[in-house]
């Protein structure tokens, strides 16, 4: 095999998780580079990168929960309203009842969990479709927000604002950079290298030939390069700014939930329920418990996202979280999840969310108005998924397919889309009879 083919196989055709990760980052980098050129270097400036992260961390947190909901075969339309409802309650608790802010955060998470339990109950135990339950929740909790807040804006105290607008503090010697951010970047580099070798070891234990060493090295070099670049950008911003606290929360959640969905029995059950709920049930999966959990988890994350937003904007208002559900859902689908459930990854959804975020940010930097930004975002969502569906039906390489959990090199003609993966049924579904 030639080196070129080796590279192609390992970038796009490999079955190791690292190959998929690499493919994803590749896609995102292309978009960033495009805007970097179009905006004459504004996109990758420290202050812009920091703002980008702060402005989108809550949407990306929602995307994590939404991914799990969608993989399980449901949808959650209520996240924006739940975020707003939690935000106003938490703000009120601190403002009127002087609840200390750390307790207020726990209070907010508890509200989210309670709302999630409410919605999960209807979905899992009564069997009302999640679309309906959360559509009702969307109205319910938006109304709740305005009822409790009297449609007013309530400010939040300084300490609370850290989770939305705080940064890593300046400690240690004066290096000209934010030292903690540098440490974080270093840790990420070590993790990347460790993971690559871990993956090679696993491949070896599974009697499969690991990718050639030079590919592993190249992959690590690129990843480390990106991390070093991003780290230096974050660390070299205006004094007092660095890697945002909300970004740290996001990264921690992303790592934890990635691990949960990929490497634990509980995560596997979510995919099983979305792939074939009856088969999952007959394999001993507790269907109701899984459905309840994903709905509850989503609302809890929505509560967290709501609090981060309130903290960033220093006050809770009646219009908080408007339209968030759509941004989160779009991120998940651009990230390669299947509408019918059973397919999708956390990292894919994060990349999907970042693609939208960079697009949004880049267009704004170019001075494009919000009206046109919306039009463009809508078209990008449609085209990204349409291109993927089309490529899959033609049996060609699918970019989004490479972002999904069950990636394989499919022979052409089989399984035109994840929804119709029963190859035998294919003629029946395409027959115009």
């Amino acid at each position, binding site marked *: 095999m030639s080196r070129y083919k080796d590279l192609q196989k390992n970038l796009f055709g490999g*079955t190791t998780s690292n190959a998929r990760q690499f493919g994803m980052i590749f896609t995102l980098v292309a978009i960033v580079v495009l805007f970097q050129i179009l905006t004459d270097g504004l996109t990758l400036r420290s202050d812009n990168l920091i703002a980008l992260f702060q402005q989108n961390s809550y949407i990306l947190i929602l995307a994590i929960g939404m991914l799990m909901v969608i993989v399980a075969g449901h949808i959650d339309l209520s996240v924006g309203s739940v975020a707003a409802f939690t935000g106003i309650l938490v703000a009120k608790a601190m403002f009127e009842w002087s609840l200390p802010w750390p307790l207020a955060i726990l209070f907010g998470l508890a509200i989210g969990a309670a709302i999630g339990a409410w919605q999960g109950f209807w979905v899992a135990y009564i069997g009302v479709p999640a679309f309906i339950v959360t559509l009702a929740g969307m109205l319910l909790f938006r109304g709740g927000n305005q009822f409790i807040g009297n449609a007013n804006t309530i400010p939040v105290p300084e300490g609370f604002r850290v989770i939305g607008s705080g940064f890593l503090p300046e400690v240690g010697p004066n290096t000209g950079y934010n030292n903690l951010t540098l440490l974080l970047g270093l840790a990420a580099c070590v993790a990347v290298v460790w993971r690559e070798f871990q993956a090679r070891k*696993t491949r070896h*234990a*599974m*009697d*499969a030939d690991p990718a050639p060493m030079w590919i592993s090295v190249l992959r690590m070099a690129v990843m480390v390069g990106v991390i070093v670049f991003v780290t230096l950008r974050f660390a070299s911003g205006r004094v007092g700014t660095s890697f945002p606290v909300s970004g740290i929360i996001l990264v921690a959640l992303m790592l934890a939930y990635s691990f949960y969905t990929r*490497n*634990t*029995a*509980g995560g*596997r*059950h979510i*995919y*099983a329920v979305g*792939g*074939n709920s*009856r*088969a*999952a*049930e*007959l*394999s*001993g*999966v*507790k269907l109701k418990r899984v459905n309840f959990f994903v709905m509850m988890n989503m609302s809890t994350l929505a509560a967290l996202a709501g609090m981060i937003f309130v903290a960033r904007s220093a006050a809770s208002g009646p219009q908080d979280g408007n339209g968030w559900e759509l941004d989160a859902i779009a991120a998940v689908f651009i990230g390669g999840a299947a509408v019918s459930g*059973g*397919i999708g990854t956390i990292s894919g959804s994060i990349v999907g969310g970042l693609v939208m975020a960079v697009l949004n940010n880049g267009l704004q930097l170019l001075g494009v108005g919000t009206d046109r930004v919306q039009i463009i975002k809508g078209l990008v969502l449609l085209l990204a998924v349409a291109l993927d569906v089309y490529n899959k039906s033609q049996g060609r390489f699918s970019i989004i397919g490479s972002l999904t959990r*069950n990636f*394989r*090199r499919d*022979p*052409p*003609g*089989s*399984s035109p889309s*994840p929804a119709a*993966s*029963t*190859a*035998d*049924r*294919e*003629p*029946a*579904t*395409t*027959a*115009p*009879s």
Partner: protein
Amino acid sequence: MSDVPILLEMRGITKEFPGVKALSDVNLVVRTGEIHAICGENGAGKSTLMKVLSGVYPYGSYQGEIRYQGAETRFSDIRASEQAGIVIIHQELALIPNMSITENIFLGNEPRRRGAIDWKGANRMALDLMARVGLQEDPDTLVKDIGVGKQQLVEIAKAFAKDVKLLILDEPTAALNEADSQHLLDLLRGFRSRGITSIMISHKLNEIEAIADQITILRDGRTVETLDVKADGVDEDRIVRGMVGRELSSRFPDHTPNIGEVFFEVRDWNVRHPISAERQVCKNESFVVRRGEIVGFAGLMGAGRTELAMSVFGRSYGVYESGTIIKDGKEIVLKSVADAIAHGLAYVSEDRKAIGLNLLDDIKASTVAAKLSKISRHGVLDEVAEYKAAEGYRRELRTKAPTVDESVSKLSGGNQQKVVLAKWMFTDPDLLILDEPTRGIDVGAKYEIYAIIQRLADQGKGVVVISSELPELIGLCDRIYTVFEGAITGEIARKDADPETLMKQMTSTKRMQTA
């Protein structure tokens, strides 16, 4: 028959997928007005060939030539082939359950008058078409309210509405009972006398022997031979020899059972229908299973065998009313599938694709799906252990797949069944309940499945086999219960089991016991 004009000729058809040659240089000659059977093991390329013929794989995606009615044809899609009068009826019927018979017959082909659908005319034509296929129903009946056999007839009527010249049936009798199958075969004979040509794919060799004029046998994507049933004096053994390329001396592996003590017992089992509570689907049923024993359950479709099995398996069907389960001398209560698995029960369902497997999964994930705890610590999965388990079963059961990373949706029926068996063997069960374990599986793979079942029994496990094929039960089981309308009507020892005795007990409430 060589004087009869050739309707269809496929010459040198080769179809490749990346890494797999599904068809190589396949030839098929079908003459007007004959019934032409295509036989072959699963994965031999029968379905691929039919997809090439019907334009699912359009012209240009394969090599070779298709001549139809004397001219070369190049179908771009399935619509083009239908316009030429070639209609495929798939094993999984393409009907809309919530539409009426008429609506289904004319779906996509609606008769119009001045732009609007002419329902009156449609109903009239539907009645005419239904008469041709021998279907007596109100054309306004919803398709979900008629049985599978009649649904099959609706599909054929739908084909006639399109002015079919070449009817292709993929496993038409797989889901039908004896009487419906017979009716369908008679119907095909009637079509033949009216000059309609049929191609039939089937695993039921007795039916093929009874009805086909010509048989083309495929093996590993190549044409092995075309036989003239009458002239060559073809019988089942002859077809099997062509399909597997060797003599199958026996359809069942030799086996000396080593039967131990009774270890599993169900007593006075009563279950009601999940929706209509007045219907009792299990009536006071009791049965026992011994270690090392293969126990059969015979019954007609709808007798309640699957319902019995699933209700025992953690109440996964119906509403439990009363009854006890005793295992190893102790009463156990199984309120969920998880309970049942924990107590060493396994249930291999009759419908692999709908409820047996998650078709999005690969072989690895499917193998371990019913007992993730075995490859995980504190809920964290061990990828390497998962791989090793799946790979072990792949070798042991000789599942045909390049690696265990292969998606189960790409496997043939027999290999999918092996994955399902592996999935349940992985749970270390004491009692395996196998519901129609060889449905839709070819002869060679059946033999392998039988051998696996016997091996499991020899390990001291109890095996329950539910099957609609009496020869299979008689050939495989040490003891057979008969079920009729939700009640066990007989218990027959292997030495006394013959199709007549079983059939009598399967249709009567009088209890008989020989074991």
